[in-house]
């Protein structure tokens, strides 16, 4: 498989009055044609900023983006405005994070989809409207002929999210960047949206960058998972490997803080203690050390790099603990959870 999108050393900095906020601090990853990469992290991990920066969409006038984002050989960060715009919505589409405001409240749903189509295609409004109705139908929206003339406020949260996805798919992009498309939806709807994404992915042969905060949700859809913390990738692996033997204490914490299906009912969730670090005054050494229960003295000085995990193809982790210690601790954590 050839890489569709290759990100090298992506950095996003915000120059604020208090100092430089390094929201994304040297992220490298790649997505192959038709594959799905999940970026998983907690609040303030930089996952949203990173996903928006891919398309040059970083909010605020004080953002500074550097690195290389190669899409089919073209460096997106070096493109002029109009070249970038011809890619946005046509070859790479995006579903933005804020589900409640992702659709414009003042325009009819249909008009918003039609705008997405006619921006890139030389078609009549009538043809664009027909295509819009087909898209809404494809995404399982009932009565698309009727819905097309409604305002977003008249739709249910589930339908609004489907419409947002429909708009992103309007021009059959090769890559969809979906920023937490299932957050805030109830579990049934969440499952429906995931199924839907899988279906259109098959149908269009589209690659997806799926950003979310829940490892279990990411595992449902992704081929590979990157776990990010404080603007850096701390662990990266194919989905099966990360489910089977997660290596980083932060990944463990993500697993343990989310409810698991099949776990005993009285099992208590272990929220991740501490707070995300300041991105201006970053901790010394390993960025996770202030919250890590396994911290040792040297971890406060040495900054770990991503290293391959021995014997696991494609698995990388940035952790200073010895591999044996990591495996042992995870086995204990798993056993402990089961025993309780």
């Amino acid at each position, binding site marked *: 498989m050839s890489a569709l999108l290759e990100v090298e050393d992506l950095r996003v900095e915000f120059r604020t009055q208090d100092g430089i906020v390094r929201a994304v601090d040297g992220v490298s990853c790649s997505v192959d044609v038709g594959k799905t990469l999940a970026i998983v992290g907690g609040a303030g991990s930089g996952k949203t900023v990173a996903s928006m920066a891919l398309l040059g969409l970083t909010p605020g006038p004080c953002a500074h983006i550097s690195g290389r984002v190669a899409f089919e050989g073209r460096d997106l960060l070096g493109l002029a405005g109009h070249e970038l715009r011809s890619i946005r919505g046509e070859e790479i589409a995006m579903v933005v994070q804020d589900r409640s405001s992702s659709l414009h*409240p003042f325009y009819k749903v249909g008009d918003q989809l039609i705008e997405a189509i006619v*921006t890139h295609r030389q078609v009549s409004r009538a043809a664009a409207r027909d295509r819009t109705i087909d898209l809404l139908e494809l995404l399982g929206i009932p009565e698309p002929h009727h819905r097309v003339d409604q305002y977003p406020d008249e739709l249910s949260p589930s339908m609004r999210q489907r419409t947002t996805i429909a*708009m992103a798919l309007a021009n059959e992009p090769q890559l969809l960047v979906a920023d937490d498309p299932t957050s805030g939806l109830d579990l049934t709807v969440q499952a429906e949206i995931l199924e839907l994404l899988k279906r259109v992915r098959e149908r269009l042969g589209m690659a997806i960058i799926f950003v979310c905060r829940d490892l279990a949700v990411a595992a449902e859809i992704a081929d590979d998972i990157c776990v990010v913390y404080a603007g850096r990738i701390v662990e990266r692996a194919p989905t099966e490997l990360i489910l089977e033997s997660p290596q980083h204490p932060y990944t463990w914490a993500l697993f343990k803080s989310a409810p698991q299906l099949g776990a005993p009912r009285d099992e208590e969730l272990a929220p991740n203690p501490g707070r995300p670090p300041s991105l201006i005054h970053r901790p010394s050494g390993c960025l996770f050390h202030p919250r890590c229960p396994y911290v040792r003295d040297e971890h406060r000085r040495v900054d770990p790099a991503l290293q391959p995990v021995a014997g696991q193809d494609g698995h990388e982790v940035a952790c200073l603990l010895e591999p044996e210690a990591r495996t042992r601790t995870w086995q204990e954590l798993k056993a402990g959870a089961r025993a309780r």
Partner: protein
Amino acid sequence: MTRYVIRRVLWVIVLLFGVISVTFVIFYLFPSGDPAVLRAGPHPTPQLLATIRHKLGLNKAWYVQYFDYLKALILHFDFGFSYQSHIAVRTQIFNRLPATISLAVGAAVLSLITAITIGTIAALRRRSPLGCLATGGAVVAISAPVFWVGMISLYLFATDIGKLAILPGAGSYVPLTHNPGKWFASLIMPWCVLAAGFAAASARLMRSSLIETLGKGYVSTARAKGISERRVIVRHALRVAIAPVVTAAGLGIGVLLAAAILTETAFNIPGIGRLTYDSIQAGDLPTIQGTVLLGACLVVVAKLVVDVVYALIDPRARSR
């Protein structure tokens, strides 16, 4: 949309009826002085007072007075006669209305246009010198009282007393029908003075509203569609950001009318504001009553206009 407008108009009628009744209560049941004494002039005799009471119907029961008042007002738009000049209040108001309408509507349009332009520039160029200048200038304009700005601008620019005599000064107002060119020239300074504070407040609101809107998901969605930045700003962001500015402008019409009194006084424009000011000085109740009612009507009608404009901007308002 039609149903929405009809609903608003019906509501305006109810509101106007309420305003008329409240004005009656204020001026007839709780008079600030005996109307007969005010009407009679200096050194009245008891017989004269009794005659006046009889003529004005002051000795009738309050509900009869209220009914007479409603009938005169609604059927004939009749407020009675001025105590001072013995001219019908209606005539006085109609003579002076064009000046005030010219002043207030011109200032409202000028201030909205400047506010939206400056607010947008300040929001889009937040860190540039131009943006800072716009924000700083707005603070100065909000803080300066209208009468002070009026006098300073007369002192600076008026042809008679100004240091830089380029614009017609106080007392130069000419009706539009007489001479449109002179009408326009004479109103340039009053428009700017009256619009300044209002524009500054709206510009600040516009700036914060647009900054907030630019952070919304649908603005990112619009950019992600690949449409031009100009279209993102104009079609997707500005339309939302303007809505609160329009609402505030509607609520601010009353403030604008109050400021118009000061502006008309400073520039000696023979409008409703001057009429109100003079009749308050003279205790001329029928005229005060007429101007108060007119002011209330203008505010109510302005609110109607704003509600309709708002519904054109935000489709969600139509169903409410």
